[in-house]
């Protein structure tokens, strides 16, 4: 089980803006779609019921016709403090079998003049050894990782 926890992603940032504004970037789908995926990919927010059990469905499209469909569900919303969502359920807590199983917990607290933003993203153990994804699937992603990481550094 220790191994499970070590695979949880914890992403922490000190955002130089008040908490109300960080909250707005998440709670306003018109703003969320601006940062959800890298340009020139675009995000379509197909459902955004910002309450516990509400549907959260994003659909991303790329310039050459590629797409990524990600239905999900909000589990918990505490205004200006916490957002919990999962891909394992859709709106109304209806069970789903997503291509990518995950639950994400986003928290925000005041820190100095800004906001401490922490996203914790959890994946099931099965995700890494799922038999239906052949070895090649993961190897294929490797090229992607390097490029995404390089890109992330240019944003800092």
């Amino acid at each position: 089980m220790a191994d499970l926890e070590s695979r949880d992603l914890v992403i922490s940032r000190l955002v130089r803006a008040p908490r109300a504004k960080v909250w707005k970037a998440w709670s306003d789908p018109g703003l969320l779609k601006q940062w959800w995926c890298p340009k020139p990919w675009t995000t379509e927010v197909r459902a955004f019921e910002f309450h516990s059990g509400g549907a959260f469905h994003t659909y991303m499209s790329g310039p050459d016709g590629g797409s990524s469909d990600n239905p999900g569900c909000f589990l918990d919303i505490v205004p200006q403090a916490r957002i919990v969502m999962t891909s394992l359920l859709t709106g109304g807590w209806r069970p789903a079998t997503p291509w990518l199983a995950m639950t994400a917990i986003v928290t925000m607290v005041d820190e100095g003049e800004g906001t401490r933003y922490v996203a914790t993203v959890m994946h099931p153990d099965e995700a890494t050894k799922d038999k239906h994804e052949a070895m090649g699937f993961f190897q294929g992603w490797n090229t992607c990782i390097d490029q995404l990481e390089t890109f992330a550094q240019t944003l800092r």
Partner: protein
Amino acid sequence: MANQLTQLTGVFSALADPTRRAIVGALGRGPTSVSVLAEPFDMALPSFMKHLSVLERSGVIRSSKSGRVRTCELRPKPLSQAEAWIARQRAVWETRTDRMSALVEQLHQEDFDRGRP
């Protein structure tokens, strides 16, 4: 920056599509000729070739021709499945969080400049 963005878009495009993920999955079993690779997919060959070409341009796969047979293979790197997978998820969320921070800080600055922080 522009070049990295182009690369990123290519790989993102290449692997977000379900057909292309299936192709990459099939190539995980080893190098395969285009005709064998195309067989399980219910689509015209030109459409299938288009998918291969997207994967190849992104650097996810490479292909070589011997006589009339074109063979595709993955361009693997030495990372374990679990490492690769989790690192990829990390990259998605790191870049996403960076974009979110940048947007919030920009909007905040604009409000500040207008005199209503």
